[in-house]
């Protein structure tokens, strides 16, 4: 089943690296042969949590996992969720850049 990943394209999210996160997700997924569909959603209004990645479960977006804010630092604290989505993410370590 194609995994659905939601990343906001709101200016507030983009300003804190949402584009970089979306790109990194797609690159890592394709490197690992995992089919994902990245959906750039509108604003969530949750600016303090951006960049946020939402992963739809098999039961749909209503039962999903949210990772936020996604930074290389935070990622290491979310190891259990790593198993859920089955791939390692390498986030851009410099931002902006």
């Amino acid at each position: 089943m194609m995994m659905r990943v939601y990343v906001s394209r709101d200016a507030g999210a983009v300003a804190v690296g949402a584009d970089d996160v979306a790109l990194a997700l797609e690159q890592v997924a394709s490197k690992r042969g995992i089919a994902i569909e990245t959906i750039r959603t509108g604003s969530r209004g949750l600016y303090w949590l951006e960049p946020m990645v939402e992963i739809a479960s098999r039961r749909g977006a209503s039962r999903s996992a949210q990772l936020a804010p996604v930074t290389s630092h935070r990622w290491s604290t979310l190891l259990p969720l790593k198993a859920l989505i089955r791939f390692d993410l390498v986030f851009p370590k410099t931002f902006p850049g």
Partner: protein
Amino acid sequence: MTWVHEPWDTARGAEIIAEHSQVEGATLVILHALQEAFGYVPQAAIPMVAWALNLSHAEVYGVFTFYHDFRKKRAGRHVLKLCRAEACQAAGGDRLAARAEAKLGIALGDTTADDRVTFEPIYCLGLCATAPSAILDGRVVGRLDEARIDAIVAELQR
């Protein structure tokens, strides 16, 4: 954004003005077109626009000065606009502005001698939730701190 602009030329200016003079709300459309072509709005074009649209010089000049995105002279190759409004000030924007000024060797509002960077204040990008924020060549950046300002300046100077 790094555009390649043409040098100011009266005939070319007149052509651009004529091209847009029939559209509704032509003043802004023409000012935008002039700035896109020349990189700024040459002051010699103001009376030409006024003449073409049957407006007074003051009316056209008033529109030109009201919108701060219209330039009197060409900007540097890169434009960094740092938000200097209240929320960003409260989040440490003053310190970041001073730091960027020192690193670039210019004051807010100036362009470096090599024409590489224009550093400008801007008053609210609507990114108060991720203050302090800035816009670099049309790209928004938020949650700025000293490390990120340093990285931006280093990128610009490279």
